[in-house]
């Protein structure tokens, strides 16, 4: 029996578009488990990113509850949500979103020092994470505009993991990268997941989705299907076929 990390009940999100209400998420009941690599898939406009940002406390739901352990995060104020995010969540974005005015090291430390006041410990962990994603020491003082997209995304992951979050949320993390750098990023995510890091990833890329052990399919704001792929192993072709079959079934 896996531990439930996060649970939603009747989660709904609506937007008003020119006076017309658009229901992007409709009564979603969802449980996310510790240690899982959950992948949310679906067509464009299905509500994948909206679901990710709602459950991570980046956006507020219109209706429903979101429970993280004993905390109802859907009832928290904006500042309480900020504190929740810094302690429990890490984010990796498609557009990477490093702060241009800060060096790579400072991008990471600005997140780390927010939670841990022990500067030495934070710096040590940052260096350790940098090493694990193949970012060399010479790059620490470079600025985001001075490195490649793949390097920037790996720095983004270091920043997301600096506070040892319970969940790492990734929104299309390979979307802006070329094939090889995208693969590197996926390998890194897989490696962290193998070390026990819970990951929730939104993607519409099958190659990326294969890395997850649990695939959720979202259609018109509703989770229409779920597929369990088991732990990722390199070269496991059966995994690909199983995912393809699931997605075909979902109308992908």
């Amino acid at each position, binding site marked *: 029996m896996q531990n439930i990390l996060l649970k939603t009940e009747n989660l709904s999100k609506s937007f008003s578009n020119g006076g017309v209400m658009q229901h992007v998420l409709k009564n979603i009941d969802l449980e996310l488990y510790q240690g899982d690599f959950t992948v949310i898939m679906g067509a464009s406009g299905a509500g994948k990113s909206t679901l990710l940002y709602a459950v991570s406390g980046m956006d507020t739901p219109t209706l429903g509850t979101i429970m993280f352990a004993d905390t109802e995060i859907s009832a928290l104020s904006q500042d309480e949500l900020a*504190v929740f995010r*810094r302690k429990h969540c890490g984010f990796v974005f498609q557009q990477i979103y490093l702060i241009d005015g800060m060096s790579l090291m400072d991008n990471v430390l600005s997140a780390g020092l927010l939670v841990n006041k022990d500067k030495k410990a934070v710096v040590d962990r940052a260096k350790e994470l940098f090493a694990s994603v193949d970012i060399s020491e010479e790059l620490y003082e470079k*600025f985001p505009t001075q490195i490649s997209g793949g390097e920037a995304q790996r720095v983004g992951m270091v920043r997301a993991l600096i506070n040892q979050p319970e969940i790492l949320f990734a929104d299309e993390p390979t979307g802006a990268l070329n094939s090889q750098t995208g693969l590197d990023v996926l390998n890194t995510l897989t490696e962290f997941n193998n070390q026990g890091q819970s990951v929730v990833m939104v993607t519409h890329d099958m190659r990326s989705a294969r890395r997850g052990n649990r695939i959720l399919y979202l259609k018109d704001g509703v989770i229409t299907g779920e597929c369990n792929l088991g732990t990722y192993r390199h070269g496991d072709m059966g995994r690909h076929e199983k995912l393809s079959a699931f997605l075909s079934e979902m109308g992908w």
Partner: protein
Amino acid sequence: MKSFLHSYLKWGGRMKKAFIIACSNFRKSKGQMISIAAIMLIVGMMLNLWLILQFDYKKNFDRNHDKLNAEHVMLAVSVNSEKERDAVRKLLAGIMERDGRTDDFYMDEAMFGYGSFECNGGAINSNFIYLDRETAVSRPIGQIEIVEDSDETSGVYMPFIYKSEDIAIGKEVKITIGTREMCYTVCGFTNSVMAGSNNCSVCELVLTEDKYKELKKMAGQGENMLVSENGILCSVRLKDKADCENYYAMLQNKLRTKYPSAGIGGNYYTMVIQARYISQMICAGIISAMAFLILLIALVIIASNIINYIQENMKKLGVLKAIGYTGNQIIGAFQIQFLSVSLTAVIPGASLSYCIFPVINEMMISQTGIPYQMHFLPVPFLITVGILVGAVFLTVWTAVGRVKKLEPIIALRQGIQTHNFKKNHVRLEQVRLPLNGALALKTTFGSAKNNVTICISMLVVTLVLAFSAVVTENVIFDIDTFINMIVGETTDSAINITHDIEDEFLQIVSADERVEKVYLYSAAKVSHVDGEILEATIIDNYEELNNQNVIIKGRFPKYDNEIAIAAKYAKRKDIDVGDEIVVAIDGTEGTYLISGFTQVTNQLGLDCILTRDGYMKFGHVNFMTYSINLKDGTDVDAFNTDMEARFGNNINGTINVDAVVYAGSLVYVQLMTMIVIGILILSVCVIAFVLYLLVRTRLGNKKQDYGIMKSMGFTTKQLIIQNSISFMPPVILSTIIGLFVSSVVINPLIAVFLSGIGIVKSTFRVPVGTIIVEGVVTVIITFLILCFMSRKIKKLSPHALLTGE
């Protein structure tokens, strides 16, 4: 024609494209444009106000001067007999007829003497010229205009400047002439351009025929009234009014040489225009300084706005260039954007000055005493618009010049070359600051252009704050320094006695238990042989004087061959301490060594100090004035009345100096209070506008950064404080430097402002404590304004910030 049409259409097409870009930029930066417009509105208003005050307000003096065919030189003479009066008249007529500079002159009978009356809770003292109504209004030169009349048939027409609650038509005014107090009903008010105020050296009072005859009869009966029935009022118009000063000195010198005992008073065009427009000069100076300082801030903001825009929209500019827009079209778009904003603000701003002007006009009329009819002035209006539009055009041209050279590919790469040399000034790994402080400091270092804007704005604001602190301390709260600088020596009572009773007077006054100190401080006139008539003060011992700061260079005269002269006059005549000058006293010339320079504005920089021995070497004293310091709580008027009763006709007049000084200074206090309140409000507005623009730009530029930081877990409060703190280093630094520099330069600056009234060196106390408090309050207010303006961060969810919604 075809070629012209072709060029026009081509130009029109280019401008149309520029106009499209301008509209797009305007839509995206409505807030900034509105703030720039607000600042330009203030600048337009102030600049137009200054131009009206500077150029038309003084012309009003000339308009009135021409209307009344007023004199360029006025001389009032009083002698002892009718025979002597006729001789003086003949002498003057001869001199004036022979002098080629004379255009026309007119002389008639008038009474002339010293007097005082109560006004605004204090006493007005002056040499008054008493004229009867019919004579006054029908003088062919130096006519007096009745500006307010009534049905009252017996009484006095007062100069318009004294119109107040106490001095109003139908009310009674008590005029002390010598030791006699005359009670007159106010029949109306007069406008006399050359002698319509006590600061014109002589002041004309118009009496109805019966009252004039009554006064003449009393003077003729030998009443000791310090007024002579045998007086002449001589008015001269010159071919060139620039000669007035020398002409006046020439007339006085010749008259004094021939009739040393004659009472002589008078003035000339340049002296009067300066004396009557002191407040206008101060007010215009302050308004112009403020206008140009705020304009400087506005231009810095516009430049910074453009530079920021280019930085942030490099890619967009690259796209525009790539699809064929020329550098001139892009520059034209900026010109259209900022010039249209400036024009739409400057025109209403200049118009708004006409709404504010009545308040200033009322204040000024109470100072000049010359009515001014407000009317639209196209030239100042056009100059205001021209200066501001020109300044904005040049600023935009300079700031946007970089776009012309920008290559599209560099722009498309977002000027990436410029990033290669970026420095990390605040490394989080090393810095010993709390995280939010360190991140704020990082932002500060990354915003050099904003910092320059802040620094310039704060330097201007601190200069204004230092000025307001100095004025508040030295004029509004404790006026003593101001009075010492303007008036020179102040005391409680001044008593003019005949020379014969001096010993007895001193014995009795010194023994009076109410008296703290009695010392000679007597007025006389001397002529600088190569120059002008100087108002001399005769003293026994300078150490007895209350105000030792009258001397601003060198020292008081100690010996009988020494003289201290006005610094302004010395500067004009290129005379220094240690030089010798030839001075005529009662017609006899003698050489004196200049021991020091004085600074007293009463005589507009035409004064000197001599020792009694120094004066008596050549001169003769019939009357002398003693200054008396009384113990605290003593009733000055009661003391003066006692002395008058005791010495009878041997006292020619007494003055309650406190009351006189109070009345004279009240208008300055009121004027300065209004100016200080005005500039403080203006300063807060300027700070708020500048900060609004900067915060808005910053939030626009850093919207995504704040989104990222919110997603990382920074709270709204942390980001608001971080954003606000990031502005504070330049604010604090420029406030400290600004206040320090302002404290040092404020006195020289004030001296420049007041140079017109004879101030060469300003000795105002600089209230360090108040300035420090002002600095702290400014910093706190700035921080609070920043926090208030940064609260917009709260409204945005991290998701929206990230996606730039």
